[in-house]
């Protein structure tokens, strides 16, 4: 890697913006539960935007069937996602501090894992897991901003994927209905649209809060 300084990286993130972004992004801390199609692409977007701290968790291993939509490359097959993703992110933004854990997020460890996060992002695949995380965070950590994704399977019009504000703290992205069990598959483009919605919301929360306090 070229010897880029953090000041140079910050200047590049701030270029074309009238207000500084990097200093606010740098102080943010975001947790991502699940490092598949949503989580890996959201993490990449946030690293590019200068997020300072990412707490990542996934027990899973990269497989060939993941390459159609997840950030990994063929070289990562067989590696834990929680080990492969930080290496990719480090090549994008070496100043992002990453804690990455190869474990299953449960109702019992969720609070401890994401206690220091400003925002928690639900990026699981299975609907039961999505519901578990959303219920657990809203019950145990009602003060946290929570962003969840539901409905991004298939290849239907991307405009069906939206950002909805369910409560003050809960944002839900996706089309809300297209289920992968219906045999429609998952495509990189549509999963990335949903991941994009979720990352946009995270950045919006950080910058709005940052500008209020600065």
């Amino acid at each position, binding site marked *: 890697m070229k010897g880029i300084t953090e000041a140079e990286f910050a200047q590049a993130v701030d270029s074309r913006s009238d207000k500084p972004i990097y200093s606010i992004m740098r102080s943010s801390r975001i947790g991502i539960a*699940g490092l*598949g*199609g*949503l*989580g890996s692409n959201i993490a990449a977007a946030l690293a590019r935007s200068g997020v300072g701290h990412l707490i990542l968790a996934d027990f899973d291993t990269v497989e060939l069937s993941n390459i159609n939509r997840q950030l990994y490359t063929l070289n990562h097959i067989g590696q834990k996602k929680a080990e492969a993703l930080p290496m990719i992110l480090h090549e994008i933004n070496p100043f992002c501090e990453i804690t990455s854990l190869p474990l299953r997020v449960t109702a019992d460890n969720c609070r401890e894992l994401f206690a220091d996060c400003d925002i928690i992002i639900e*990026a*699981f*695949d*299975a*609907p*039961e897991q*999505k*519901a578990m995380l*959303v*219920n657990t965070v*809203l*019950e145990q950590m*009602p003060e946290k901003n929570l962003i*969840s*994704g*539901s*409905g*991004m*399977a298939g290849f239907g019009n991307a405009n069906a994927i939206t950002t909805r504000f*369910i*409560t*003050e703290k*809960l944002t*839900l992205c*996706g089309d*809300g*209905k*297209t*289920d*992968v*069990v219906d045999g429609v598959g*998952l495509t990189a483009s549509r*999963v990335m649209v949903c991941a994009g919605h979720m990352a946009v919301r995270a950045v919006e929360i950080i910058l709005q809060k940052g500008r209020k306090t600065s």
Partner: protein
Amino acid sequence: MVTINGEPKAADGMTVLELLSSMQLKPERTAVMIGGEILPKSDYSTALRDGDEVDIVSFVGGG
């Protein structure tokens, strides 16, 4: 009357479990908010009351 995801519905007296069942939704795939507060799964057998504002998120697979 109860409001379900912004729509009025005559569901007062029904439990959340009965409501979900009537909507063909699986409780293990949902998050239910009443008046903007999450309803713990252990309270899904409580009856809805007139005026309750219920938001139901039912998750689908893929990610």
